[in-house]
């Protein structure tokens, strides 16, 4: 029986959280009037017609998500960590959390951004940034299919793009984006990973210039930029090939063309009204904003012909080397820019209703689906019609000198009355599209060819992005769609004001979508990517080869351990192996010394990291992978004896994996002395 409060909670969820005044969802309106009559009577006799969990989940759901102990999931999914700044990895269909990959935030679990080796990864032109906001992900592709090499991630706040290596599941590279006000329209990629894209969400004055804040100043001074980041196909290393400078507006999401539309990139926009304040109202005035279509092959030709301008700027390029185990930062001082008013005919605008979010290209590459957050329909554009319209110059005008194609000329058709608040669309490779609806909390399945609605299922609650594994590629795996919801509310046991976010797994194998599973996620899941596990798992790095360790402070075996002093800098070359640290007794350190513990894990076995912690170290701890060297900086503030130990359970004698650092007052003559002492009790010869 529905509890008296349950219906009210559900409806309250919808009103509070959607924060809109135009709720017209028929179930809601119907029920709202009933509520007005008698809440108690309603609760007793009339259920909210939003499906409850019991009715939405049919009997065989459990067996479809059950992955027996010791068995593997069929898919890896990589899920953005939103405001956590990290990326999480889940197995599908089980929904089991496999790993959190630190990318744009310090990570206390493994020392990313805390240890001396990885601090440079979070360096920017504005210093060390410990926490960012991570929204979208893109798996590398070859011929429009996942190739399992890399995963790209955007930092939404301080504009950056990261590359994660899918052998080690570590962030290997972070590239800062100049002339960007917030890297939202990113990191979508072309079908052979030629480019990763970085489009600015906030228009800003170019070159970090100052300008007054008013709608007039916005129109006069603010610009949007799109950076095309080239990717070295061997190393994966990224570099900004060129930037396109666009009129000031907000770039939201983007997708590369594929197949016939390969060579083009499409961006959704909002705030083409060009407001600097109260965008909630001021950026929602026009019936239509734009989809920006950029012919990047033509842009490449302009760059090759020397048409791009060198602009002085500054941005960081941080890379992690798995042989030195260290990250280094390089500061790049210029960027090439292309102005569509000077180099003509490679940028076009297509009107799209109304503040579009999703801008998704179907697996054939022919159809581009715009999802206007405030629109009551979904426009589907045809790439062929777009190119025909460009050839015939079927334009309705210009926007700051850029041709605007006539809406009807580019349109394949509209999906009528699909739901409220369409956000994002993915595809199953069988001619069907799946669009998320934030306001009406549902996924709608429709046919691309005839634009007919085929099915709809509720989500709990307020879905943002959705993801079909491979759903943005030429060959979607087409088995599941996963909803990434903004609101969890009553779905799990309550944990105070702060709740986990939620994902929901649906089967799309049959004609009707079927809800299979809820599972919590870290941070806020925006977009995600899913790939067959078989494309990644066998290339997995299990250890780092100690013989290839080129860390400048590595200890190649215990014989190489030592402690050195230069001025007030003390370097401790330490090794860890089950189950002792060498040296484990260190004397001669003074208050105020900068002590660097360089801990080399001598293990060469999978899943045997060692941890390292020193009492009252106000920086961090370490977690050191087999064959790796990691460094903790410790500046003791008071004299005394400081215990240190291994923090990651490693063997039956893990608890014994400990030692002492003696810290003397500044200026004392205690000599440096170190070692791992004589065996005690007296040695016993083993047979």
């Amino acid at each position: 029986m529905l509890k008296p409060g349950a219906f009210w909670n559900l409806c309250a969820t919808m009103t509070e959280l959607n924060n809109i005044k135009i709720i017209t969802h028929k179930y809601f309106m119907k029920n709202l009037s009933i509520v007005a009559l008698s809440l108690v009577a309603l609760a007793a006799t009339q259920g909210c017609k939003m499906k409850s969990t019991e009715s939405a989940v049919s009997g065989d759901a459990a067996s479809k998500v059950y992955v027996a102990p010791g068995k593997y999931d069929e898919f890896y999914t990589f899920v953005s960590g939103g405001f956590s700044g990290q990326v999480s990895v889940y197995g599908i269909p089980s929904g089991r959390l496999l790993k959190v990959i630190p990318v744009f935030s310090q990570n206390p679990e493994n020392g990313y951004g805390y240890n001396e080796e990885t601090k440079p990864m979070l360096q920017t032109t504005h210093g060390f940034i410990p926490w960012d906001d991570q929204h979208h992900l893109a798996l590398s592709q070859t011929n429009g299919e996942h190739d399992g090499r890399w995963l790209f991630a955007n930092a939404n706040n301080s504009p950056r793009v990261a590359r994660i290596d899918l052998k080690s599941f570590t962030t290997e590279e972070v590239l800062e984006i100049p002339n960007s006000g917030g890297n939202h329209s990113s990191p979508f990629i072309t079908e052979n990973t030629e480019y990763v894209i970085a489009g600015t969400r906030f228009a800003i004055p170019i070159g970090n210039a100052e300008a007054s804040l008013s709608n007039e100043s916005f129109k006069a001074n603010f610009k949007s930029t799109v950076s095309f980041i080239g990717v070295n196909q061997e190393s994966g290393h990224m570099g900004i090939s060129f930037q396109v400078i666009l009129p000031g507006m907000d770039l939201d999401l983007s997708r590369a063309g594929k197949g016939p539309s390969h060579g083009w990139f499409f961006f959704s926009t909002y705030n083409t009204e060009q407001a600097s304040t109260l965008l909630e109202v001021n950026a929602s005035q026009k019936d239509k904003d734009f989809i920006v279509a950029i012919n990047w092959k033509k842009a490449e030709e302009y760059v090759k012909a020397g048409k791009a301008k060198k602009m002085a700027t500054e941005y960081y390029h941080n890379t992690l080397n798995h042989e030195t185990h260290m990250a280094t930062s390089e500061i790049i001082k210029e960027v090439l820019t292309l102005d569509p008013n000077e180099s003509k005919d490679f940028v076009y605008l297509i009107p799209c209703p109304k503040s579009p979010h999703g801008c998704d290209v179907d697996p054939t590459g022919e159809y581009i689906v715009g999802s206007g957050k405030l629109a009551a329909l979904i426009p589907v554009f045809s790439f062929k019609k777009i190119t025909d319209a460009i050839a015939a110059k079927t334009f309705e005008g210009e926007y700051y000198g850029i041709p605007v194609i006539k809406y009807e000329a580019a349109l394949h058709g509209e999906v009528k009355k699909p739901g409220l608040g369409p956000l994002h669309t993915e595809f199953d490779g069988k001619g069907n599209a799946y669009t998320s609806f934030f306001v009406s909390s549902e996924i709608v399945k429709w046919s691309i060819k005839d634009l007919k609605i085929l099915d709809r299922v509720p989500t709990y609650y307020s879905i943002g992005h959705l993801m079909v594994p491979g759903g943005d590629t030429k060959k979607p795996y087409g088995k599941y769609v996963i909803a990434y919801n903004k609101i969890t509310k009553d779905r799990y046991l309550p944990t105070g004001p702060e709740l986990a976010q939620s994902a929901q797994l649906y089967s799309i194998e049959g004609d009707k979508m079927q809800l299979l599973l809820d599972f919590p996620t870290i941070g806020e899941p925006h977009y995600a990517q899913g790939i067959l596990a078989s494309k990644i798992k066998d290339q997995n790095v299990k250890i780092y080869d100690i013989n290839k360790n080129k860390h400048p402070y590595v200890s190649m075996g215990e014989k190489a351990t030592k402690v050195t002093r230069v001025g007030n800098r003390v370097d401790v070359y330490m090794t860890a192996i089950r189950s002792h640290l060498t040296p484990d007794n260190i004397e001669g350190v003074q208050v105020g010394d900068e002590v660097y513990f360089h801990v080399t894990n001598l293990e060469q076995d999978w899943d045997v990291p060692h941890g390292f912690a020193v009492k009252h170290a106000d920086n961090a701890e370490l977690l050191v992978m087999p064959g790796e060297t990691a460094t903790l900086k410790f500046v003791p503030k008071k004299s005394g004896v400081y215990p240190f130990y291994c923090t990651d359970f490693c063997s039956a004698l893990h608890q014994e994996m400990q030692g002492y650092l003696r810290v003397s007052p500044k200026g004392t003559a205690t000599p440096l002395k170190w070692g791992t002492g004589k065996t005690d009790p007296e040695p016993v010869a083993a047979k």
Partner: protein
Amino acid sequence: MSRKFLFLSFLSFALIVASCGGNSEQPAQTQGSTLKEPGEDDANKVAASDPSVGIGKYDKVELSTPLDNGMIKAGEQAYDVKCGSCHKLTDEKLVGPGWKGVTERRKPEWIMNFVTNVDVMLDKDAEAQAMLEVCMVRMPNQNLSDAEARSLLEFMRHNDGVK
């Protein structure tokens, strides 16, 4: 559809499910795959034939004299990085037993199998298990290559006075 009806339907469904409790039908086992320990099957065959050579791919190791100096040197390097933390070159036990006399106590095949097939040996070989009971720390699998293992064996023989 009323809540009540739904609830009753669910209840009856639950009862039906419950009444099938003794059913031997297995839950879906087909999701994904398991990682197979490579070479484990071969390893067991060897074990069955001669326990004193241990379990692994080495059933015959050719030894020769005089010792190969290149291998001794490579073996010592590998020892320093991967073994010396726990094994002394004397007969003194540290974490593991000292290496003095090891080539007299063990067949070369057993040594080669132990250092290259550590986990299987610790789980199944009686001699290795007996050592684990004394040392109480599982010998780490140090991922030795075949060449490294053979060099270590040469270094052990050198340490035991073989010329």
